[in-house]
């Protein structure tokens, strides 16, 4: 079945979905894209953040987005500790750190999953807010407001991080450590501390992304497995370390998924995502906006 109305709706909903994908991937763009840390526990941290938001919303009736902002500093500290642990046990010790680091982060992901199960049980959890479950009507098109929230937050995060990384001293230092760690060391800076700080920022961003995750759909302890492929797909397609590229890649992914879901059949949607990734890498091995 094909109609222009359907196509228009698919594109609009796809852009919103893409922005949500960008929000949940943008932290990985820093940790994996800029710092070369094989952070496969990224989606597990994301789910952990969403449970933190759930707790604030359920116990203290705090708005999920505000809760995301409140837990972001805690996640910043969690990021600092995690990176220091990773650095001391793996990165400092040799060139195969990346391979062994994957095992380290898989371990962390499993620990987080089990801790969530022990604390919250295995049931789904969701939050309440005035903008969840409502739609904005534009003609005959209905746009879920929770998706509009994800759209706005993803745009704000992208602008904030892109500005921070390009305009501030620390942001430029993070970019420098990604490009030439040794050069930075020769200039008297401590690349490990800079990477640790950057990892902290990447994890703090997950506090807000976790809020979006639970605003968009209910969460359960093993949800990280659903997002691991998607988030890495977005970051690699974007070009490692490109914040703007992450937003563009996520929107391309969201729109293509949405069009396929609407016009051709739901089973094809994930295949299209990865076909797109392969297509982009075949033409531009460095990703959309990678150098």
């Amino acid at each position, binding site marked *: 079945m094909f109609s222009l109305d359907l196509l228009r709706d698919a594109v609009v909903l796809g852009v919103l979905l893409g922005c949500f994908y960008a929000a949940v991937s943008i932290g990985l763009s820093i940790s994996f894209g800029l710092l070369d840390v094989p952070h496969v526990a990224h989606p597990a941290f994301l789910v952990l953040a969403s449970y933190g938001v759930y707790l604030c919303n359920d116990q203290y009736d705090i708005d999920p987005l505000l809760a995301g902002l409140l837990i972001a500093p805690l996640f910043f500290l969690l990021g600092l500790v995690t990176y220091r642990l990773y650095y001391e046990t793996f990165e400092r010790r040799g060139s195969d750190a990346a391979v062994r680091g994957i095992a380290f982060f898989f371990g962390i992901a499993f620990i987080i999953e089990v801790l969530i199960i022990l604390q919250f*049980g*295995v049931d*789904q959890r969701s939050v309440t807010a005035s903008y969840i479950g409502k*739609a904005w009507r534009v003609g005959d098109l209905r746009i*879920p407001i929770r998706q509009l929230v994800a759209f706005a937050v993803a745009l704000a995060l992208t602008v904030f991080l892109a500005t921070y990384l390009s305009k501030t001293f620390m942001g430029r230092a993070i970019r420098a450590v990604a490009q030439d760690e040794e050069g930075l060391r020769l200039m008297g800076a401590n690349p490990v501390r800079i990477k640790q700080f950057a990892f902290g920022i990447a994890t703090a961003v997950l506090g807000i992304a976790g809020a979006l995750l639970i605003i*968009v*759909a209910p969460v*359960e302890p093993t949800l990280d497995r659903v997002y691991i492929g998607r988030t890495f797909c977005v970051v690699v397609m974007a070009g490692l370390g490109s914040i703007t590229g992450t937003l563009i890649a996520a929107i391309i992914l969201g729109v293509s998924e949405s069009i396929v*879901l609407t016009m051709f*059949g739901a089973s094809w949607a994930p295949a299209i995502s990865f076909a797109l990734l392969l297509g982009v890498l075949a033409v531009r091995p460095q990703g959309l906006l990678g150098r």
Partner: protein
Amino acid sequence: MNRRDVFGWATAAVMFGLMSGASAEEPPIKIGMSMPQTGGLAGGGKASLLGIEIWRDDVNAKGGLLGRKVELVVYDDKSSASETPALYAKLLDVDKVDLLFAPYATVPTAPIMPLVKQRGLLLMGNFSFQVNSKIHHDMWFNNAPWGPADSWANGFLTLGQKAGGKTVALLSSDQEFAQNIVTTARDVTKKIGLQVVFDQAYLPSTVEFSSIIRALNAAKPDIVFVASYPPDSAAILKAVNEIGVGDNVKIFGGAMVGLQFAAVMENLGSLLNGVVNYNTWLPEPSMYFDGTKEFFEKYTKRAIQAKVDPLGFYLAPYGYAMGQMIEEAINATKSLDQKALAKFIRENVHKTIVGPIAYAEDGEWKESATLEAQFRNVKDKNIDQFRSAGKQVIVFPDRLKTGDLVTPFEASRGN
């Protein structure tokens, strides 16, 4: 008598007590099973296990079976089909269990069917769907009220047709359970003369359903039959609430797994109103039998401690009923002989807390008791409301019905 004598007599008395106790105590009857306690099926698995544990405690309080205590040997299968064959081999060869219960759900159960058939073992099924249809094991008894394979789809689609529906949309998760269900739904539509205008399967990793619901809406179906798993069920209902399915839809729901669980029901709240979905037990007047009320009193207390589904309607009473059937069979045959037990279960009607159970040749219930119930007057964030009658009104089958279907779907949501 000095202090040393007193100590000596006391020691002797304790030793005698221990030895006489040991010689009088028979080894327990071991019932082995795996149960999903982590992973996607864990919510159901834990509730089911609690139901079985309550039965074990009740039967042990009455002195056990054949003068022996009942002991459960349980492993977590992580909701995975790849775990269960090894776990059941371990239960049989290492733990030397006397009897087997199947894990909750179709996916973990299917791979152990060849094993139990090969070894000629009795297996009490636990909410599987048609896992014996190709194996034809004559010692399999599915403890689930499904009955004939098409009972889920038949009840729902017949209701839709009676409400004036002529066209159907089928939306299903792309995994074995949902695909089995939707296959029977396609057959039923042909049999009763409904036209399928939308038929899509989505992958279980789908997180956002707005686009799918928009496409479904464009097909303008009268009946929407959904076969989904818990995470998808909640996301689909959210999208339906926001995007809408159109005024022409008479009935929406069918086979949405998850809407039976307390946490999901509490989270969705008023979004559930109007949805007609399958269920197995509900606190409606037609569903109380001997021991049902007492069971739920015990369950409610223990569920809080065990952090499992506080309502436990869907699986827990069936876990208890599974124990009741085995208890009845062992007491009647006075043995643990698997063939004798299977013969007894096959040839008799069993009185349980979920009603009388009789088995057909294929090990499924002779008569389906799969309920179709419509959510009504559900409020947000209130779990206790679901304990009262009237929140999930049984609209099918006729013998258990407690109300009529309210239609069309969009209008019924405002009830």
